[in-house]
């Protein structure tokens, strides 16, 4: 007659095995590329910063757009100055374009259009939606102000979770209030230009 008792031996062996199995099952998905969004974040941050700093935007008068037209008009933001003779002036940002960009990011509908045209909203293609924040700081780390108002510190609110940031050194086409740097007590403009740091942060 067999008693239907589970031996302690079996329980021990089975529990050790199950313990390991559950540990590995939890650990595995975290390693594969599909789930690790951080890999994609770095690419997006680099891409957005390059798009803003090295591209004048489409169309050539995109910075004249107003908040009520942003839903219907197609445009791509780009902050670089475009000179009719020499072409794009890389790393030279136009204050006017920055101001338009900041205005668009302040508006709740327009920021979604900007997100879409920057290629950060891939939901229609079955992909993810990224959040982003762009800010312009001077070399001391303070936000650049123009006519006493902050020029660019707009986008989604930066969270405490994993955020990837890419920085670029740029110079503006107009003199802002605080682009000078203090060297040995004197206010100096680096290379006679209004040099600033553009920070692009991207997260999920």
């Amino acid at each position, binding site marked *: 007659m067999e008693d239907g008792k589970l031996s302690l*031996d079996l329980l021990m*062996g089975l529990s*050790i095995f199950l313990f390991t199995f559950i540990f590995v099952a939890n650990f595995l998905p975290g*390693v594969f590329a599909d789930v690790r969004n951080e890999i994609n974040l770095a690419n997006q941050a680099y891409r957005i910063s390059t798009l803003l700093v090295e591209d004048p935007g489409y169309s050539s008068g995109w910075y004249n757009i107003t908040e009520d037209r942003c839903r219907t008009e197609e445009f791509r933001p780009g902050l670089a100055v475009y000179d009719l003779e020499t072409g794009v002036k890389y790393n030279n940002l136009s204050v006017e374009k920055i101001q338009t960009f900041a205005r668009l990011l302040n508006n709740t509908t327009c920021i979604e259009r900007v997100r879409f045209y920057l290629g950060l909203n891939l939901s229609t293609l079955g992909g993810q939606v990224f959040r982003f924040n762009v800010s312009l700081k001077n070399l001391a780390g303070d936000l650049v102000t123009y006519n006493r108002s902050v020029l660019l510190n707009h986008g989604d609110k930066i969270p405490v979770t994993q955020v990837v940031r*890419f920085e*670029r*050194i740029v110079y503006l086409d107009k003199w802002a209030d605080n682009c000078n740097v203090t060297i040995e007590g004197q206010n100096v403009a680096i*290379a006679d230009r209004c040099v600033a*740091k553009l920070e692009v942060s991207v997260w999920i």
Partner: protein
Amino acid sequence: MDLKGQTFTLEGVAASLLILIATYTIFQSTVVMSPSWSEFNNIQLKQLGYDILRVIDNPEAVNSSLRGMIGNLSCGDGNYYAPAEFSQNLSALLNALPAYGRVELIWFNGSSIETAVLFNFSKNPTPNAVRVSRLVAASNDNCLPNAKIVEVRLTLWR
């Protein structure tokens, strides 16, 4: 104590070991390793380097631009001194990143290629430093003889 009947425990332990060793072996191979995070830091530093060289290459600035620096270079005893304004500006820029920098000038003197290090930016880089260069059309008959164009090479590290 009865030492018989421990087969299941041994089996369980062996099974766990098998799974763990297999997982460990697989993840030691480069195939499933995550793309190196350090590569992204290199990209960031390299792009900042290019940006710095582009921003300080102002054809209109006199002493603080690359052109001005090359034109007003002073040399002696094998050392090359950039104008003080340029050194201060570049140091301020590097401090703001923050990063350390080394600046070298490379030019062709008619028969061979010569290299010179700027006196104030002559620290030795770490192994993970990045190097960026920019060709600047400037000349200095005194210190860089026969050079019509100079390659400014900036090495950056953190």
